[in-house]
């Protein structure tokens, strides 16, 4: 009953998010083209790296592993991307956060459900082609179908966890705008750092052991590296269980942090723009 009421309250946000995403189709298409282009740039960079060595693999990655890594990382990064920081920071900066406070809903849930709605179409448009493309590529290179349904399903679970971690991380970060007033610079800094620390730029396996160990434990690897490694079948089942446990740990931590930041920040809310 409570769940039903909960869904009734927040479903409209998802619907509104969907309608919004339809209103900005061109934006999505441009974004997608840009991202895919940068994906191919990375592909050619790595191709050059592999071409210049004589051994068929590099730090345990073959060229085809690398391609899978690149594209699945791109997919994961896109699916777990959360706009929370920007959305919240903008609303705080222009003061329209006030309009959310006069509605009988919880903030994080409003943002979450709206963002889910925003993503639904985009996910459908992007998910199937990339997975299909990657699998065809793997099959063409090795001659055997590499698709493994168990790993795929575990990947989906890990992906959902990663998204929620990303969401709460971004919400917490967005609330910083209560203190900084404008978060534009800090947001760009965050993107760079997160991309590097999460292994989205370079696989963590390529890094020095000590650094890789530390990064593996930090929340950032839970955002992208963990699900990608699961997809690629680089982890044993034991390892997967451990990694997912770590993801759950970071998710709970992030939720608690976001609540704490919110409770503290809202008292300091001052009115910007009347």
């Amino acid at each position, binding site marked *: 009953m409570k769940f039903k009421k909960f869904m009734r*309250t927040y479903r*409209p946000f998802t619907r509104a998010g969907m*309608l*919004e995403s339809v*209103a900005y189709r061109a934006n999505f298409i441009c974004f997608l083209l840009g991202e895919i282009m940068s994906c191919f740039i990375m592909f050619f960079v790595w191709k050059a790296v592999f071409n210049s060595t004589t051994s068929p693999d590099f730090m345990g990655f073959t060229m085809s592993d690398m391609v899978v890594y690149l594209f699945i990382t791109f997919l994961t990064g896109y699916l777990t991307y959360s706009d929370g920081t920007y959305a919240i920071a903008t609303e705080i900066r222009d003061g329209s956060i*006030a309009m959310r406070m006069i509605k009988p809903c919880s903030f994080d849930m409003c943002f979450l459900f709206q963002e889910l709605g925003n993503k639904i179409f985009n996910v459908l448009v992007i998910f199937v082609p990339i997975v299909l493309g990657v699998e065809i590529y793997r099959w063409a290179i090795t001659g055997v179908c590499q698709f493994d349904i168990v790993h795929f399903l575990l990947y989906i679970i890990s992906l959902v966890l990663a998204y929620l971690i990303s969401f709460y991380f971004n919400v917490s970060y967005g609330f910083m705008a209560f203190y900084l007033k404008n978060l534009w610079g800090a947001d760009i800094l965050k993107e760079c750092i997160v991309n590097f620390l999460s292994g989205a730029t370079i696989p963590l396996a390529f890094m020095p052991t000590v650094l890789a160990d530390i990064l593996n434990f930090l929340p950032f690897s839970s955002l992208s590296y963990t699900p990608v490694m699961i997809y690629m079948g680089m982890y044993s089942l034991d390892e997967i269980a451990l990694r997912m446990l770590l993801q759950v740990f970071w998710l709970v931590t992030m939720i608690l942090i976001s609540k704490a930041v919110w409770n503290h920040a*809202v008292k300091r809310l001052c009115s910007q723009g009347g």
Partner: protein
Amino acid sequence: MIYVNDLKKEFKKAIKEPGLKGSIKALFKPNNEIIKAVDGITFHVPKGEILGFIGPNGAGKSTVIKMLTGILTPTSGTCTINGYVPQKDRQKYVKEIGVVFGQRTQLWWDLALRETYSVLKEIYDVPDKEFKQRMAFLNEVLELDSFITSPVRTLSLGQRMRADIAASLLHNPKVLFLDEPTIGLDVVVKDNIRNAIQKINAEEGTTVILTTHDLSDIELLCNRIVMIDKGKKVFDGQINELKHEFGQMRDLQFELVDINNVAKLDYCEHFNATADDLQLSNEGVMVSVRFNSDVVSVEDMLSYTLSKVHVKDINLKDADIEEIIRRMYRQEVSIDEV
């Protein structure tokens, strides 16, 4: 219904010396000054009242409204509305209030207006039947029909404001907060909105708190006004009381027989009154004298006028509320500058 007790809100404001040097200095050694935006305000609003909340720009009106609606947390003091403390039970409390900030919108920018209403219906848990009735009523008073299918971002200011007011009334709130609902609107739309407020108040007994700079809003809608300035309450009472308490401005209007007689009238010198207390203006034979009846009695005024010129017609009336408030604003400013 609404109890506000010694409400205070202080903001920290960074003082920055001008120029780049000042910015850099402020970066390392911020120098804060405390601004008292609201400084101990107390009032009480019974159920079903329309209260006008007025004051010059920057008086702290919006800050009070923001505290009453739970957006800002007071530095000290309390407010209780329907038995709720807005900051404590935010989610439950806001279900019972409607809020319109004239300078913002609660509508979904990218959605058709109709969609916003169905989103709000779900959020506020409005039953289907009630929703239909409400929409029909709001449609009728605010004339939403012509733009209900357009995306909100394409609406004109007047349309948007009407839509916003409808949105705040959809769930039949017990208290309605309107922060400058008629700002920047034309006369027809203003009328429309005043009508809606009056109807809702009469039919549902909704308590309304209204801030505005448009004094005809006040005169047409409010039973009572609270005026604040520099964060302090300077007046609380009926509009008649205000007229009584602050300056007895009267308008004496008459029609001259001979237009050349205007020169004979030299009120300022005769009564030794300042321009603030006495003003003369004329359009051809129509002359209008605005005077403070505390300084110049009505009798003196009439006898002086009639002794100097012949008039065809004469008429004396109370100055409107607008004039009183204008004088009050000016007075407050001048007291402070001395």
